C-alpha cells in the first residue's frame, strides 16, 4: 500500500473529504461538441464566497483541490482564488483548455505552486481539434500554452477525450504530449448533459474501437493482466463501495451546489445555504450514496465483474438508478475481458423472452417518452 493510498484509507475511515473538484464557472471560450454543460452564468459564487468556501474546505480536511469549469480562466479573479487556496496549503490542480494562458499566466501559476495543469487536447491536427472545440486556432493556442507551462517547469497532463470524431488521432495526441514533455491521459467517457439530454452519447466511440484501446499495451501496460477474466469476488468485494464519490470526494458547482461527483448530478446541498461540513456530514443524499455496498446492487452484485468493474454510480444514476448498472461500464468490462456482464445477460434474456403481456395503448402517456429513451440507453456500437 502506498503512502497516498494509506491516506485515502484513513480519510475514508475518518469521513474526511480528501478531494474536492470545484468548478468556478460554466462559462467557456470553447463550445466542445461533447460538453455536458450549459455555458450561461446563472449566478456564480463571488470571489468572497469562494474564499469563504476555501476556508471551510480546508477546515474540513480537504487536501486535493481541482479548480475547473467551464474554462477556469474566464474568471478574472482566478489568480486571487488560487493564491487564497495556496495560502491555505491545498494541493491545487487546474483544469483548462489553455487558450488564455500566455507566458505571464504560466509564470504566475508556477509562482503560486500549482501542482499540476490538466489541458484538454482532442487531436494533433488543427482541423480535427478545432472542429471539436468550435474555436478556430484553439489547438495552436493550447500547444503554445503547454510550451509556456513546461518552460516554467510545471507538471502538465494532456487529457485526451476520445470520441468518434477523433479516435483515429489518439496516437497522434499521445506523441504530441510526449514531444511537449506532458503526461498523457486518455478518457473514452462521454456523459449525458447535466440537464439530462443524452443526445451527445451518440459521440461515444464504437465498441470495437474501445476494444482496441483496452488491448493497446502503450495505453494499458500489461494487456494480459488488464484484460484478464475477473477473479471470483471475495467477501471484501461484496462489502466494498464503487468509488470515492461521496466517501472521500465531492464536487461543487459554480453556484455552490454540492454533488457526490462531477459525474453524479445528485443535488446534496448548497454552500450558500449551509456550511460545507454540515452538508458533507448530514446530507441525506450523501448518506445514501455512502450506504451502498456492492452486495446491495440488484444486478451488479451477481455479476462476474463486480470486483473489477469500473461501474460509475453517477452514470448509473443518470440512467435512472444509482444502485443499477452503468451500461457504459458494463460494455467496458465486456470489451476488456470478453465476458458479458450480468446486466448484458439479463437484457439479452429479456429481449429474447419478449414482453409477458403486450398492452397497446391508444396514445402513450407523456412520461413514457423520456423514460423509454432513458431505459433503452443504446450502447455505442450495439
Amino acid at each position, binding site marked *: 500500500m502506498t503512502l497516498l493510498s494509506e491516506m485515502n484509507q484513513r*480519510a475514508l475511515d475518518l469521513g474526511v473529504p480528501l478531494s474536492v473538484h470545484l468548478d468556478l464557472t460554466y462559462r467557456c471560450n470553447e463550445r466542445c461538441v461533447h460538453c455536458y454543460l450549459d455555458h450561461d452564468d446563472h449566478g456564480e459564487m463571488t470571489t468572497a464566497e469562494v474564499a469563504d468556501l476555501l*476556508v471551510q474546505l480546508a477546515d474540513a480536511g480537504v*487536501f486535493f483541490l481541482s479548480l475547473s469549469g467551464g474554462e477556469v480562466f474566464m474568471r478574472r479573479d482566478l489568480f486571487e482564488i488560487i493564491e487564497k487556496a495556496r495560502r491555505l*496549503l*491545498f494541493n491545487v490542480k487546474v483544469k483548462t483548455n489553455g487558450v488564455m494562458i500566455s507566458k505571464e499566466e504560466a509564470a504566475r501559476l508556477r509562482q503560486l*505552486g500549482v501542482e499540476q495543469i490538466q489541458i484538454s487536447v482532442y487531436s494533433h491536427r488543427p482541423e480535427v481539434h478545432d472542429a471539436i472545440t468550435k474555436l478556430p486556432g484553439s489547438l495552436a493556442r493550447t500547444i503554445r500554452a503547454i510550451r509556456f507551462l513546461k518552460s516554467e*517547469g510545471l507538471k502538465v497532463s494532456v487529457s485526451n477525450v476520445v470520441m468518434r470524431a477523433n479516435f483515429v488521432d489518439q496516437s497522434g495526441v499521445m506523441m504530441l504530449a510526449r514531444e511537449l514533455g506532458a503526461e498523457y491521459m486518455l478518457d473514452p467517457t462521454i456523459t449525458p448533459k447535466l440537464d439530462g439530454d443524452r443526445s451527445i452519447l451518440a459521440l461515444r466511440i464504437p465498441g470495437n474501437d474501445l476494444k482496441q484501446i483496452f488491448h493497446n499495451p502503450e495505453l494499458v501496460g500489461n494487456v494480459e493482466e488488464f484484460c484478464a477474466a475477473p477473479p471470483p469476488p471475495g467477501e471484501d468485494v461484496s462489502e466494498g463501495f464503487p468509488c470515492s464519490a461521496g466517501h472521500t470526494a465531492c464536487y461543487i458547482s459554480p453556484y455552490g451546489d454540492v454533488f457526490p461527483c462531477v459525474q453524479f448530478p445528485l443535488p446534496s446541498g448548497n454552500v450558500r445555504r449551509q456550511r460545507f461540513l454540515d452538508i458533507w456530514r448530514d446530507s441525506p443524499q450523501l448518506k445514501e450514496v455512502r450506504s451502498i455496498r456492492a452486495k446491495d446492487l440488484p444486478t451488479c452484485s451477481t455479476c462476474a465483474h463486480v470486483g473489477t468493474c469500473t461501474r460509475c454510480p453517477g452514470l448509473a444514476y443518470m440512467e435512472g438508478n444509482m444502485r443499477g448498472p452503468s451500461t457504459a461500464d458494463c460494455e467496458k468490462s465486456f470489451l476488456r475481458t470478453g465476458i458479458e456482464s450480468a446486466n448484458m445477460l439479463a437484457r439479452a434474456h429479456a429481449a429474447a423472452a419478449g414482453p409477458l403481456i403486450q398492452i397497446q395503448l391508444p396514445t402513450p402517456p407523456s412520461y413514457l417518452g423520456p423514460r423509454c429513451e432513458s431505459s433503452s440507453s443504446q450502447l455505442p456500437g450495439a
Partner: protein
Amino acid sequence: MAERYIMRGSEVAARVLGGEMMVMSTTDSTFFTLNAVATAIWQAADGRTPLSEIVANKICREFDVDQERAQRGADRFVDELSRHGILLVSEYPLVESFPSPESR
C-alpha cells in the same frame, strides 16, 4: 555546527489528517506524512526561530525527549525535507517571499 533556521517552502501542500500532517512537494509530488514530533517542527518553522531553539523549547518539553537525541532526529528530518524543497534551511533568518500560509 552553525545555527540553522528553517522555514516552510512555498511549493508545498499540507493538511492534518487524523492527527498526522500530510505534506506534499508541489514541484516533485513527493508525499510525506509527519509524526507528531515532525509536525511540531514543521509548524514551528517560521524562518526566524533557530532549529536548536525549536528543539529545546518545543520538542524536548512537549515530547519528553533529551536534547541531543531530539536534535539528531530534527537534523535528519530537516535534511530530508529540505532535499525536496519542503523546508528551506539557512544559517541566517529567512524571510517569506510568498504570503504566509494559513495553516489549518
